[in-house]
């Protein structure tokens, strides 16, 4: 992909100087009735870094994501998202890419991708003009005016990712972004996302149950336990991904070693 840049404005990715905290959880707990979803979760990542949360199903991973986004209120502890600690504040910093693509079936691919711009009060015409150029870069050229049901699963996820990106938020929350795809398409999409994220420096929180995906796409991987969700291990990935294909990275001895460590922590 070379020096071609995705070029979505950072929307203040480097603004609000001061602390360099991207996302910080300090002793965060959350229960739904008697069910404890998260218990004493603590981790911290810098701005423009990427963190992957892995763990078994039902381990409160999605809860963690919703807490970060400010869609839920936590019971104890503090959550700091670029200095914002209130739910409204966090909501204003985060854009979420949901597990299912959640494209609106009555809108074309282009109109789905531009919805965040439209929500800010920009007219449909201007929002379309602003969003259209990205379709080619996302491998979606000529599919601008097609409704989601006529797109393949991989294409729908790319529209969904573009929609998240167009929100121009500093923080991207990816909730099992490729969970619904077959393994071959998932691999292709991971590689594509790795390049796309390399072009747009953002703080990324990725929730997945796929250890490979977490290690490939993140700088830090947090392994969580089953309910109640606790941080079991924090793995500093530090793999060299620049200039290597997904296959090369995933089969390298360093990667295998990290994977072993993560899998061991999950058990």
């Amino acid at each position: 992909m070379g020096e071609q840049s995705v070029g979505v404005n950072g929307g203040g990715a480097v603004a609000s100087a001061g602390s360099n905290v991207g996302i910080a959880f300090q002793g965060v707990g959350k229960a739904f009735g008697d069910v404890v979803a998260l218990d004493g979760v603590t981790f911290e990542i810098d701005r423009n870094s990427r963190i992957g949360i892995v763990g078994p199903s039902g381990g409160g991973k999605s809860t963690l994501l919703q807490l970060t986004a400010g869609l839920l209120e936590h019971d104890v502890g503090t959550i700091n998202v670029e200095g914002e600690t209130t739910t409204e504040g966090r909501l204003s910093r985060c854009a979420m890419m949901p597990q299912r693509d959640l494209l609106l079936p009555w809108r074309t691919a282009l109109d789905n991708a531009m919805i965040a711009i439209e929500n800010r009060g920009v007219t449909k015409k201007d929002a379309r003009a602003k969003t259209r150029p990205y379709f080619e870069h996302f491998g979606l050229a000529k599919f601008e005016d097609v409704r989601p049901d006529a797109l393949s699963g991989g294409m729908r996820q790319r529209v969904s990712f573009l929609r998240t990106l167009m929100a121009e938020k500093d923080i991207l929350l990816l909730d099992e972004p490729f969970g619904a795809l077959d393994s071959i398409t998932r691999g292709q999409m991971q590689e594509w996302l790795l390049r796309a994220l390399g072009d747009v420096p953002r703080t990324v929180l990725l929730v997945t149950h796929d250890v490979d995906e977490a290690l490939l796409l993140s700088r830090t991987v947090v392994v969580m336990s089953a309910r109640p969700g606790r941080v079991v291990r924090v793995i500093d990935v530090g793999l060299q991904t620049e200039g290597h294909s997904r296959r090369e990275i995933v089969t390298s001895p360093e990667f295998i070693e990290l994977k072993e460590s993560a899998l061991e922590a999950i058990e």
Partner: protein
Amino acid sequence: MSTQAPEQPAADAMAAEAPPIRKRSSVWVRFWRNYGLALLFVIAMIVIWQLWIKIFDVPKYLFASPTAIVTSLQKDWARYLEPNIWPTLSEVLIGFGISVVVGVGLAIILHLFTPLRRAVYPLLIGSQTIPIVVLAPILVILLGYGLLPKVVIVALICFFPIVVNGLDGLRLVDDDFIAMMRTLDATRWSIFRKVEFPGALPSIFSGMRVAATFAAIGAVFGEWAGSSQGLGYLIQASTPNLQTARIFAAILLLTLIAMALFGLVSLLERIFCPWVSRGGAL
């Protein structure tokens, strides 16, 4: 940015990925597949009906044969049938139109204001247990013999399924869509306009289709309660004279009005909800 060079190969290999192909068969084949059996069934019923009356020599004042109905349609058209179609048709259309506006409006208001929904919804359901047959004469006393009481009765009978289906449609919109929209800076109003309302449209149309079948019934009740014109009135006036064939002809026309309204609603749904595939069902 990257808008020059339109034929440039796509940025990555995945762009070659083909979207699913849709097959479209010819109009006639689809018509036959959807309605062929229903058509055959209706024809068979008419044939059996005609034979039955012929074989058992049923007196024509007791039960009209299909051919007698056709004869009545020709003979009575100008004098009895045609002049009575228009009053009934206008009652149905105006009443239905009002019920759509009021029903959808009320569904939206009740959805957006939860306390109001809690207050009004049980009352709304309770009101439906009052039979429209007993309500009709009261409305005639209140509103006179003109068009108004019939329109009100049609609207009353039609608006309930629209409100209930509309409310359900609005309420059952996936929470994940709403959470997604909230992280994309959507206001309450934009969530309603861009997600909830379009998401509820198919349900609203379902309610309208049910209502369309009720509309003609409402008009007949209204006319029976007090009227000097309309197909319901014609049925009522023809009964003491044992004009059985004419009664059947009027019933047939009422059915056609209801079916036409149903068809109109289905057509509107196709226009306004092109993303919904209904597998050929009307």
